[in-house]
């Protein structure tokens, strides 16, 4: 990958999938595949309604951790561009939380790297969700299924 092809952003503002994906391919013709994932704030979780959520993070480590995940993906697959955007602060149901987009020559590397980055982000990037529910505020507990999803990339 050429320098500058990894973009990491942690921001309170919304993002636009179309803008980000267009920025990846704009002015170049070597990209054959872009895989993207957008995570959204749900209106329910663990059997309760959710009216809003607040995302806390660890400034400094967050950016470093996300860059490390992108670097690992670049070492593992042949990638042309990686964009990771994660929002912090207060979000409402339906709001976009996270975007991972990966460009490659072929779909296999793009699909795999996109899923790897999301799975790794879920267990290694220092973000924490606090939900507003009709019963009051609560911190979201980590899920064992996220550990399982991340661990499958470690298998030989």
């Amino acid at each position, binding site marked *: 990958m050429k320098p500058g092809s990894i973009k990491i952003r942690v921001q309170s503002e919304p993002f636009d999938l179309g803008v980000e994906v267009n920025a990846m391919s704009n002015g170049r013709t070597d990209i054959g595949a872009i895989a993207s994932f957008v*995570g959204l704030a749900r209106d329910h979780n663990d059997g309760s309604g959710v009216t809003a959520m607040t*995302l*806390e*993070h*660890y400034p*400094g*480590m967050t950016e*470093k*951790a996300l860059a490390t995940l992108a670097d690992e993906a670049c070492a593992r697959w042949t990638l042309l561009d990686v964009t990771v955007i*994660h929002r912090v602060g207060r979000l409402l149901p339906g709001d976009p*939380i*996270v975007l991972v987009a990966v460009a490659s020559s072929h779909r296999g590397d793009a699909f795999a790297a996109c899923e790897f980055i*999301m799975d790794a*982000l*879920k*267990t*290694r*990037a*220092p*973000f*924490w*969700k*606090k939900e507003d529910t009709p019963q009051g505020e609560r*911190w*979201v*507990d*980590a899920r064992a299924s996220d550990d399982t999803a991340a661990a499958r990339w470690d298998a030989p």
Partner: protein
Amino acid sequence: MTLRVLYFARLRERFGVAEEPIELAGDRVADLIALLQARGGVWAEELAAGRAFRVAVNQDIVALDAAIPDQAEVAIFPPVTGG
């Protein structure tokens, strides 16, 4: 040695502190956890063996037997829930 210790999310709220300087006699993460557990109360409860928490030294997540360099920034937080 002197450390800058940070707490995040649920642990920050339970401990009632976001950041503090700590003077540590040992040089392992486990030594710091033992010192904090010895405060009793919510510290002993949240950092008890078997409780799920993570420790980062200079912004890298590490294991309890990891070494801590002098002047390190150490963060203690719950398992992450972003994405």
